[in-house]
């Protein structure tokens, strides 16, 4: 299933990456090339195989549900492109 320009634009929107028209065409070609190459996985018989999401054989550890960190507002905001009133500042999202 080859991606159309419209598909690429949709993925770019989902990815929040703005693409110029020539980039859309460029990525469409590259991505379709990669997807075609990836198609070969369909020939592998995976009936009854459980999907592997992690190779780690240990169960995720539990810890007490307590605060272990905090009171570091200054550090958290230190790298913000725009911080004001102790918060990250962004363009207005609610009218």
């Amino acid at each position, binding site marked *: 299933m080859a991606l159309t320009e419209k598909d690429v634009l949709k993925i770019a929107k989902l990815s929040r990456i703005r693409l110029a028209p020539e980039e859309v065409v460029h990525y469409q070609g590259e991505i379709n090339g*990669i997807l075609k190459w990836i198609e070969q996985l369909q020939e592998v018989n995976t009936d009854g195989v*459980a999907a592997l999401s992690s190779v780690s054989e*240990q169960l995720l550890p539990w810890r007490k549900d307590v605060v272990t960190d905090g009171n570091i507002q200054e550090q958290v905001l230190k790298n913000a492109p725009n911080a004001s009133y102790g918060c990250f500042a962004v363009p207005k999202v609610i009218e």
Partner: protein
Amino acid sequence: MTSPTHMTLAEARDALKARKISSTELTQAHLDAIAKHNPALNAYVHHTPEIALAQAKAADDKLAKGEAGRLEGIPIGVKDLFCTKGVNSQSASKILDGFKPEYESTVTTKLFAEGAVMLGKTNMDEFAMGSANITSTYGNVVNPWKRTDAPEKKLVPGGSSGGSSAAVAARLGFMATGTDTGGSIRQPAAFTGIVGIKPTYGRCSRWGIVAFASSLDQAGPMTRTVRDAAISLNAMAGHDPKDSTSAIQAVPDFEAMMGKGVKGLRIGIPKEYRIDGLNADIAAEWEKGAQMLRDGGAEIVDVSLPHTHYALPTYYIIAPAEASSNLARYDGVRFGLRVMDDGDTLDDMYEKTRAAGFGSEVKRRILIGTYVLSAGYYDAYYKKAQKVRALIAQDFKQAFEHCDAILTPTAPSDAFVIGENQDDPVAMYMNDVFTIPTSMAGLPGLALPTGLSKTGLPIGLQIIGRAFDEETVFKVADVIEQAASFTHAPEGY
């Protein structure tokens, strides 16, 4: 007298302990070498001489008191992917322009606790995505090695840990940290004639290392000898409660594996790794490596890893899928670059920031990752890849019923010229054909140099072990290193 930068890490450690040299002298020698050679190599991208000299002085004080850590006073490079407190940590991306973390990664915390001295941050492919170090916002890294037939051509140092590999090969650090998601420690080690180990997934904490593909990323050392890698890994590894996938496993003394030999070990040779297009010199080196182990008393056995061929396409679904999710955090809100114009909405800001901040390799992987995770395609791509991944891991489990370690080439070719393989992503991906299966299965893999290709470039082999059996990997690597006695180094450093 040869420069002290030419010692091995172990020699430097012993000289420091014997007070034959001070860490301040060693550090200054490295800073001088970096000043001289780095402009041509572009291996270091953030220089931290003040930190290095302060750490060296502290190390000298400790050494005087006889309180040396494993790496006390040893100058190293740190890949830009590691968060280092107060020092630019940008994953070689424009989107993290100016980012100075307020915290220190667990691995660098451990290294500093063991006395390591940070010379600077090393270059890499943007967000560790690449095999040639040509996707960095800081520009390409140049391999210190030169082809005998075309010395004027600039070669890639491998990637993504290309700054680290070039730095260690050019004697600009006894060790540099690397990270490996699909081969990013081992392939650059192979291209620059040094040793690199990707330990078992979970061996080193990922906390404070900028995430690429969380189910695959692992940190490891890049050094000039197997012993140096063993010493360094001991300083980096260990359980960390801050990384829930970090293994609750004791870390054995890896250096103690030196000289243990391989007598009685069974070494597997996987037939599926004899691929078309494997460089003839590398194929010959592989044969020689097996013979060295046979001479050392190991038994060489044929093994099969039937799904090898599918590891690469599987990886190029799983890694971009995880990356698209991990890289969602770079949105211009909390750190790094923000691009917006007056009157822009929040979405405009996100889209413009990410368009300007990410390079084209990273964008392509985010787009693919988003696609394979999107509604309607998730099962056909992502879930299918996870199932094939299970089969790849199963292959190794079955092979290790018949052998104790597996010997393969590290990369299918020697270092190529900057600009080659650039137009075809799939051709570039082939660089990691021998390293990706190990990553998919979470197993330890060590790359070491064994010889030179016909054009005078280093080539080498990979040793793969069972999960959490780096000890056997080090034993095998030590025997090959001794037998191969690879003493070549790039000229002029």
